[in-house]
């Protein structure tokens, strides 16, 4: 039977044939599938870093295997490296060994490495898009759960474990079950002072940290279309905090404009062909999803988390919930424990809560537009006395761009610490960390117990809210800034 045209096809047939972007990408990448087995899915881009790859390379050596497609693999060092000046050696012996091991592995197996002294070094999810390696319609994996960031380009991108890293290195394929799809439609327009970070924190607060388990989010709607690529990356980045391994936005002119001319993007006739192909990716009219949710951007406020998972978030004008009003005993128990850890009181306002540290950076909010927003707030002012403010660019390229624009001077003059690129205090593996009991407002993605240092307490928020808070030393609504 020839494929039907939408106008003439019966509705049931149109429905059965209408595909989501996820189904389209999936179908194009299934290598084969045995009955009862997961699909063997071809991978277009494999990003690796120092922390989740060493054991995978050991596995390859034990088996006597090569890396099948070093031309579809790229490495950088980001998690455990210091963000102090690069002319100093890595003081932490274990981190130094790990970074050295990555270099050895990349040399031995022929993998391009943007190492810790390279001009292209940076957080793996910041450099992929920067270099034009992250492309629409691609399957992208990395041994890191924030790989969903690349979904902003209309790629199917997700985090994998080290056994899977080994499999992709050896075969450029993965064994995968077909994911379910979850439409997140964000209608309306964001109000002034409300940003992409607030959209994703609001979604997670609504559905919980397990709400998207087994699904891929597709973010759509007027408010998503209006976002820049960097803002879309912020949203896709935190899909995993809503339980979804991947989240994506269908590519459009914003996507193509961002990609065009980047070092690894196709060019000339190949670019035109690629764009024509990418334009076929958006979900067909009538495509159906396993789950759907609608969020009204008009009603969103800046969001802040108060607890110990990213689902424990509230509008900045709100108050900390009371375990006594939780109907589910497990939720009440979790909330009690979270408030105890955070040393917050049920019913208290989250506004004006003092902080010791402000962290601006990470794969969620460490790109140039994030730094511009923070700098605009801090320009000509000084951070509150006794508050440590760390600004960590997401990549060496972001750092250079910020310095060309004089943002580093603005940050330094305001009393903030301007550092080298890396994951830094988002994961606190490299010595950038909170002391026990300290509070931070952070533009990163996780507020788990001890995430930013043992005993540290994290409030997640947007760069705008974090910068406003830096000035006062207390959680501040950025809409009140003059």
């Amino acid at each position: 039977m020839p494929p039907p045209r939408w106008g003439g096809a019966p509705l049931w047939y149109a429905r059965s044939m209408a595909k989501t972007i996820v189904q389209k990408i999936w179908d194009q990448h299934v290598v084969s599938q045995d009955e009862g087995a997961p699909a063997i899915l071809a991978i277009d881009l494999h990003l690796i870093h120092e922390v989740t790859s060493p054991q995978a390379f050991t596995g390859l050596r034990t088996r006597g295997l090569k890396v099948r497609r070093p031309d579809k693999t790229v490495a950088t060092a980001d998690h455990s490296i210091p963000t102090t000046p690069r002319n100093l050696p890595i003081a932490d012996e274990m981190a130094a060994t790990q970074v050295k091991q990555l270099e050895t592995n990349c040399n031995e197996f022929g993998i391009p490495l943007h190492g810790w002294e390279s001009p292209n070094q940076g957080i793996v999810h910041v450099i992929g898009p920067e270099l034009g390696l992250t492309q629409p319609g691609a399957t992208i994996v990395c041994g890191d759960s924030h790989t969903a960031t690349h979904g902003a380009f209309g790629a199917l991108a997700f985090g994998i474990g080290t056994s899977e890293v080994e499999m992709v290195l050896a075969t450029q394929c993965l064994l995968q079950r077909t994911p379910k799809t979850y439409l997140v439609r964000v209608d309306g327009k964001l109000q002034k002072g409300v940003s992409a970070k607030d959209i994703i924190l609001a979604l997670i607060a609504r559905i919980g940290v397990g709400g998207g388990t087994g699904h891929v989010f597709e973010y759509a709607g007027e408010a998503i279309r209006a976002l820049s690529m960097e803002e879309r990356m912020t949203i896709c980045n935190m899909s995993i905090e809503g339980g979804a391994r991947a989240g994506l936005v269908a590519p459009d002119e914003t996507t193509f404009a961002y990609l065009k001319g980047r070092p690894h993007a196709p060019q000339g006739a190949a670019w035109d062909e690629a764009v024509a192909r990418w334009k076929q990716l958006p979900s067909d009219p009538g495509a159906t999803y396993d789950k759907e949710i609608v969020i009204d951007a008009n009603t969103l406020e800046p969001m802040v988390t108060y607890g110990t998972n990213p689902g424990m978030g509230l509008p900045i004008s709100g108050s900390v919930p009371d375990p006594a009003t939780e109907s589910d005993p497990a939720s009440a128990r979790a909330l009690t424990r979270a408030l105890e850890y955070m040393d917050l009181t049920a019913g208290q306002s989250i506004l004006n809560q003092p902080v010791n540290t402000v962290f601006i950076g990470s794969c969620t909010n460490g790109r140039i537009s994030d730094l511009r927003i923070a700098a605009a707030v801090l320009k000509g002012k000084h951070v509150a006395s006794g508050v440590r403010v760390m600004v960590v660019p997401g990549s060496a390229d972001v750092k250079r761009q910020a310095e060309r624009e004089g943002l580093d001077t603005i940050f330094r003059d305001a009393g903030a610490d301007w550092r080298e690129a890396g994951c830094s205090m988002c994961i606190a593996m490299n010595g950038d960390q909170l002391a026990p009991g300290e509070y931070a407002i952070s533009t990163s993605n996780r507020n788990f117990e001890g995430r930013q240092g043992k005993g540290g307490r994290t409030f997640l928020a947007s760069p705008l809210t974090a910068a406003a808070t830096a000035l006062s030393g207390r959680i501040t609504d950025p809409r009140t800034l003059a």
Partner: protein
Amino acid sequence: MAAPKVERFSSALIPLPAENVDTDQIVPARYLKVVVKSGLADALFHDWRFNEDGTKKTPPFVLDDPRYAGRGILVAGDNFGTGSSREHAPWALDAFGIKAVISTSFADIFKNNALKNGILPISVDATVHSQLMDVARSGDAAQVSVDLASAALTTPGGAVVKFAIDPFAQKMLLGGLDELDFVRSKEADIEAHERAHPGTVNTKAPQAAK
């Protein structure tokens, strides 16, 4: 690198009545600076188990509670393993001797990682979960037995409860079969797909001047 093999086992239960137990609790990030898989037993739930000076907390965390010593099945709250993709989480569980985690649901990446290391993420409904949690919290040494071939566990009361498991993972674990060998056996399919879909991503060759 032998693939894990699992058939059946039995153990008394360890209670961990917390929801959304995240990977940063299972293995704090500062223990990810290793380049091998072994040696993570003390990293497991480190910050819930140890004081600043390295001594064990008083009262001890469940894993260090003498009443639960030597047990290999953890009963935890909903959405266990939320957070990062670190396979160090199942490596640490394995190093400590945990063979299965029983919960009402698991985070996707953790579940995959656990299965690849022969640790069973066993999802049961809320009623069964609550019964097993009660048994675990009572300290009762009654055994729960798990049989992978029939995908069922037998409760201390003798009830047989089926649990869902990916049939492919089940087959691989029962046979001690290697997933990478399986995919490598499809070499002809992979080559054919590569020829038909060269793609536009090339990490080695920048295509445009910046």
